[in-house]
């Protein structure tokens, strides 16, 4: 009797152990075999390495949030592709402003800044919004004031010689391309005035000669039978070095 109950107990323990290891394996498969994991847009290798360092090294069992902030900050410092961080993408006034967001997928908390001026640490500012306010998104100069009040360096000029040179060339090119539509003058710098679409003479189609094309960009405007079609000063340019 005693022997069989011992055997029964061992059997039970084995099953129990297998079950645990299965769960462990399964659990590990779910929680850790391929993890940690970092994924990022574009071949921004240094940014991914910076995030990886935080999330994977022993001493820095950094949270996923810390890793994301480290990775995106690396790109801000490196000015990845000129589309991240200070010194790129000047607006029509030649100024660089920053947009950034961070989200914690465990708590669904989000912090974000938009069109932030004079502070170069975009995603760090976003994290401060998440950690030190009940808000989700702060914008413009108020976002700047919040970030500086929470300890980020600033105010500082976010332009660079490259961004200013880019902007100067654009102005010499009659401020083309741009993001205006249904305004006059077309194909030139502003100030712009709205075309009153309701009062535009309708004679057949709205015929507009193409003012000229430059570098594959269609300047001026185009023939449109549909009055409601916006009269674009030209097609906007979205590419690897100019996008969101």
């Amino acid at each position: 009797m005693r022997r069989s109950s011992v055997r029964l107990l061992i059997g039970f323990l084995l099953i129990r152990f297998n079950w645990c290891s299965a769960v462990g394996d399964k659990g590990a498969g779910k929680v850790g075999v391929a993890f940690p994991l970092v994924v990022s847009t574009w071949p921004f290798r240094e940014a991914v390495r910076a995030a990886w360092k935080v999330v994977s090294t022993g001493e820095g069992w950094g949270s996923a949030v810390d890793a994301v902030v480290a990775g995106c900050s690396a790109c801000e410092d490196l000015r990845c592709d000129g589309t991240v961080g200070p010194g790129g993408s000047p607006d029509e006034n030649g100024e660089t402003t920053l947009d950034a967001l961070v989200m914690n997928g465990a708590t669904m908390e989000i912090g974000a800044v938009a069109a932030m001026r004079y502070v170069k640490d975009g995603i760090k500012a976003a994290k401060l919004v998440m950690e030190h306010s009940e808000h989700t998104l702060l914008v413009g100069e108020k976002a700047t004031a919040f970030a500086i009040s929470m300890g980020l360096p600033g105010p500082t000029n976010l332009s660079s010689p490259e961004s200013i040179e880019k902007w100067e060339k654009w102005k010499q090119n009659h401020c083309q391309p741009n993001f205006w539509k249904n305004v006059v003058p077309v194909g030139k710098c502003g100030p712009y005035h709205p075309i009153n679409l309701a009062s535009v003479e309708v004679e057949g189609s709205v015929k507009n000669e193409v003012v000229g094309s430059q570098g594959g960009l269609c300047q001026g405007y185009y023939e449109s039978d549909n009055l409601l079609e916006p009269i674009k000063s030209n097609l906007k340019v979205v590419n690897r070095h100019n996008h969101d």
Partner: protein
Amino acid sequence: TISMAVIDKMGHIAVGTSTNGATFKIPGRVGDGPIPGSSSYGDDEVGACGATGDGDIMMRFLPCYQVVESMRQGMDPRDAATDAISRIARKYPDFIGAVFAVNKEGVHAGACHGWTFQYSVRNSSMQDVEVITVYP
């Protein structure tokens, strides 16, 4: 623009985006970078997404929210990414943009429209960062 997703050893997910936006934008213009659910979105229970492209168009469709919710309904990352991009392309055939999707098991995929896209991956079974190219 960089959009990044991280899954840590405990399976916790975080996402982030940082950008200086479109060049020669009208002052005051904000792209989709800081818009929750557009440039990035993540939920520990499902997975995450990152996006890049013409933010003026993409923010109208919240592609990353769409990707995560499609995966929550059982879509795999590839279908979820393709679905989110095609929803935009159906309305704006000339739009330029891309997303990557990663589920909570670490399976990832990308989709794009109007340009060739690349995304970077690093996990514990790799020696260094690997770059994956996605064609439109």
